[in-house]
């Protein structure tokens, strides 16, 4: 078989794999994980949760949406960040319509 046909076949297989990733994601969103998502929404509603429990080392990383504006700079303005997560969670200015 010609090399070009093998290449086209392999590329088509890769494209099909990518399309199946799309379809998998789509079905998971619509049916597969729908129940799990509803259960998580129920959890958020029942417990009144506001933030993800990803970074637990500081107030402003555990609850980025609830923190005051000064928390990420607790020592003094422009002090070096203490926590590595602070490089992911930048201070968020939301109240009063201020945005970064």
């Amino acid at each position, binding site marked *: 078989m010609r090399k070009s046909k093998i290449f086209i076949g392999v590329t088509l297989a890769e494209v099909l794999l990518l399309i199946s*990733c799309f379809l998998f994601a789509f079905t*998971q969103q619509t049916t597969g994980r729908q129940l799990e*998502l509803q259960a998580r929404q129920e959890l958020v509603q*029942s417990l009144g949760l506001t933030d*993800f429990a990803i970074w637990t080392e500081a107030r402003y990383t555990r609850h980025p949406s609830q923190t*005051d504006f000064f928390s990420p700079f607790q020592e003094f303005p422009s002090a070096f960040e203490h*926590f590595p997560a602070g490089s992911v969670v930048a201070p968020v200015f*939301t109240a009063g319509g201020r945005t970064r």
Partner: protein
Amino acid sequence: MIKHLKIIDYALASLFRRKYKSLAIITAFTLVVAALASILLFSSALKTEAAHLLDSAPDLIVQRTTGGRHDLIPAEYTEKIKDIAGIGAVTGRYWGYYYDPLTGANYTVQGTDGTAKNLELLDGRLPADRGECAIGAGIAAIKKTGTSGELILVNSSNTGVLYEVVGVFRAASSLLTNDLIILANEEVIDFFGYPPGKATDVAVQVYNKNELQTIAGKVKKLLPDTRPITKSELVRTYDMVFNWRSGLMLTVFSAAVIAFCILAWDKATGISADEKQEIGILKAIGWDTADVLALKFWEGLIIALTSFLLGTIAGFVHVFFLAAFLLAPVIKGWSVVFPEFHLTPHLDPYIVFTLGFLTVTPYVASTIIPAWKTAITDPETVMRG
């Protein structure tokens, strides 16, 4: 068509002749695309998850601020907020942080009023009485306890308090509950020694979601020492946190982009003497400049397309099937209790097309340009070097 198939045949044979070099380029290129795809898919899945989940969060959270810092909110504030038109239930929330010196981990202690029905993602039940608690999977693992087990915490008076674990949140909810300790509201008040009649903050139900901003404004006007946080602000916070512009994401993203630029630059600044000679010979035996360009185009496309497709698929598998195990330690920071990511698969065509456009196009262009420069030179000069 047949001509192009033959050119592809030749291009593949040419790539096979330099198989180690081609393999090295495909591997490096695939890794760069996989890194970029992982970051983009991971942050986009977290943003989507935040938008879906936080839609069920309280409509409005009202905090009291004193001296620019979050302070406990008095019960009379609740009464004043209730008087604003368009507001439903106003509930005080009791929560705080607990540092466990034994494990070096921080936990979030949150109160419940006991009215919540049993939850699907909770093995067991929520605490209904004092002396009971429900905990996240992260705490259960680090404290080596479980349903019907015990949890000892030290309260604000430095006295050890023993709780019976009546529920453990399932791993599927770890993103929300990993570090949570749920106690009855009265228990939280006693545990942290909160003064009577004060809550941590207040959750407000707003009937008409379009009025959220107006009501937040009214609360701020009525109680100037408060900070109202609307639900849309919660979602916006996570939009910003997981935006590709945000700190670490940008750092990893830029590193991958720079690596790719070096790869493309190396290709663009020149081709090897062997390749130049090959082009010279092809021209000498009668190939047109257009044929040589078509050959180089296919060579570039074969490498770029294969790497792009493999990299994107690898990124998808890494994030959604392998729980982003390579990204997680980078994102973890100093967290002791860190959740597993059970993200709902999400593949945005926009991300795939952007990734394709930003990687395939420059690579193919950088392959063609030096080849074109060589192809327009006299074959004899090229072959003589």
